[in-house]
């Protein structure tokens, strides 16, 4: 048992939840600190307050109630909290549900959608290794060898950079790694037909569905 009384534990979790939902990083990190001081487990802070909040953010985005500013604010508040609890999660018994390598393809620097996907994936329980933007094919190959991820995500925003996705998948095949990872793709102009054409395992139109899709293609139950 931890030292917090039931009501204050509930209050703290509710406060973090509401602050993440409202995109208030100050309130959210204060709540997280209060939770840690009250000996609430890091896992509980993440999975009983932040994750449900981000799930609600995703729902509101899909419903057209939240737009990019609100979603970015919530992801920002969540990240501020995660910075506090991430070191403690490493010690916890709960393992990540999978490892995800993410990157924006070569020649492309668009990263807003990619970063939102990272936040959603992390909140779903994945360990996310973000290779950043303008990532060449060999960096994806190296990351697969080094981190042995379950899935790789590639983002491209432009018609001129979309083709890099096909090249990257070719490079992963050439390296003999294709059957070791699921490959998921996204970006403004992509669609399922394009994902099929380049031989990806899935396409997601937004961050919320990216997290859902990843679990689906990896056969992870809710």
């Amino acid at each position: 048992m931890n030292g917090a009384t039931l009501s204050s534990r509930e209050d703290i979790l509710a406060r973090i939840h509401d602050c993440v939902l409202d995109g208030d990083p100050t309130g959210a990190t204060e709540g997280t600190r209060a939770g840690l001081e009250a000996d609430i487990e890091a896992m509980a802070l993440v999975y009983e307050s932040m994750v449900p909040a981000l799930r609600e953010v995703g729902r509101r985005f899909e419903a057209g109630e939240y737009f990019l500013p609100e979603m970015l604010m919530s992801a920002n508040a969540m990240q501020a909290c995660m910075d506090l609890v991430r070191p403690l999660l490493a010690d916890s018994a709960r393992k990540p549900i999978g490892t995800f390598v993410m990157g924006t393809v070569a020649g492309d620097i668009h990263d807003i959608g990619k970063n939102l996907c990272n936040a959603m994936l992390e909140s779903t329980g994945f360990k996310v290794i973000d290779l950043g933007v303008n990532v060449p094919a060999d960096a994806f190959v190296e990351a697969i060898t080094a981190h042995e991820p379950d899935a790789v995500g590639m983002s491209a925003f432009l018609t001129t950079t979309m083709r890099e996705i096909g090249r990257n998948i070719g490079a992963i095949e050439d390296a003999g790694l294709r059957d070791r990872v699921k490959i998921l793709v996204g970006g403004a102009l992509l669609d399922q037909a394009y994902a099929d054409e380049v031989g990806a395992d899935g396409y997601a139109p937004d961050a919320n569905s990216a997290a859902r899709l990843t679990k689906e293609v990896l056969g992870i139950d809710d």
Partner: protein
Amino acid sequence: MSMTPRERVLATIDHREPDRVPIVLGVSNATGIKMRTYREIKQLVGIVAEDRYLYDWPELGTADPDEATLQRLGTDVRGVWDLEPDWVLERNRAREPHSDYINSWGSGAKEITPGEWFPMVEPLKAATSIAEIEDYPWPDMHDPTRVAHVGERAARLALENQYAIMATPWLLFPLERAFAMQGMDTFLMNMAMYPDFAEALLWRIEELCKELMLHFLEELGDNVDIIKIGDDLGTQESLLMSPAMYRQMLKPVHADYIQFIKQHTRAQVMFHTDGDVFPLIDDFIEMGVDILNPIQTSAGKMSNLTELKQRFGDDIIFCGGMDTARVLPQGTPEEVRQETRRIIEALGQDGGLMIGAVHTVMNDVPAENVLAMVDAVEEFGHYPLEL
């Protein structure tokens, strides 16, 4: 009845049927053609002409097409634009190759892969206070070298009286400028987290936009038909921000800017805004937008051309419509021909349509497809339309 290109455009923006649907191509960045595709067009049709860059700005990568190519493309407008001050152009010409391109605002671009530049130099990235806006060394909009060439070029085009004159001062889009100064994600977040700051930044930028716009309009005098401004407000599926946030924070800035322009010119205002902006079109009409560009038909409700025409066609002119997401870069010339026909039939009845690409024609668009588009306008775009 045959019209001059200018008469064709003026009839269209007067909601009358011209002789054929006007073409807007190659005359600003958003309606322009990237250099590699421009070179391929010249090669394909056998035109020999010098490569020139729009705004004298190679890093932007958009061609300033020669007259013969513009004529082959059947484009009915000719462009006039400002320039960055001489000292900025000279500094950038003299800088180390591949080093960052910095403009007069202090923002700029980095070269990500050879020849591909992205706006990534964001001098107000960390700012969240009004003091930081006040302390920033904003550009001098009174530098005469920005507009020294404008009057002469516009007067020559007006004297020829062949083509409609579309003027596009560069870097005068308030939200786009705020993104350039802060980064898109940062500024969008600041709009929600620090609305007073975000609004102050938008109004400060708009003040500068108006300063330069006034010099620009004074140089143009009456020799201008269309002033193009804008700000990208849509995404592939929705809006960048909620309609409520747009109406609260940005619409007053846009409305004030458009009112200012209309006080100083009789030209029509073309408003460029990418993505699915369907929910805001009534707002644009209310602000005084005359022409909406680019009608991104691949994005959300903008694909519903029948509803667009029925609901807004009497109040606003459509400019653009030709899909740059799939049809132009990946389609066959026949698919381009059919898509051109579809756009003309859906949006062109009773005038009200100027056709063009939804975005800059990028370097992955085959020259054949650009020609297929303009040839299809010649084939299907003559009035009365055969529907």
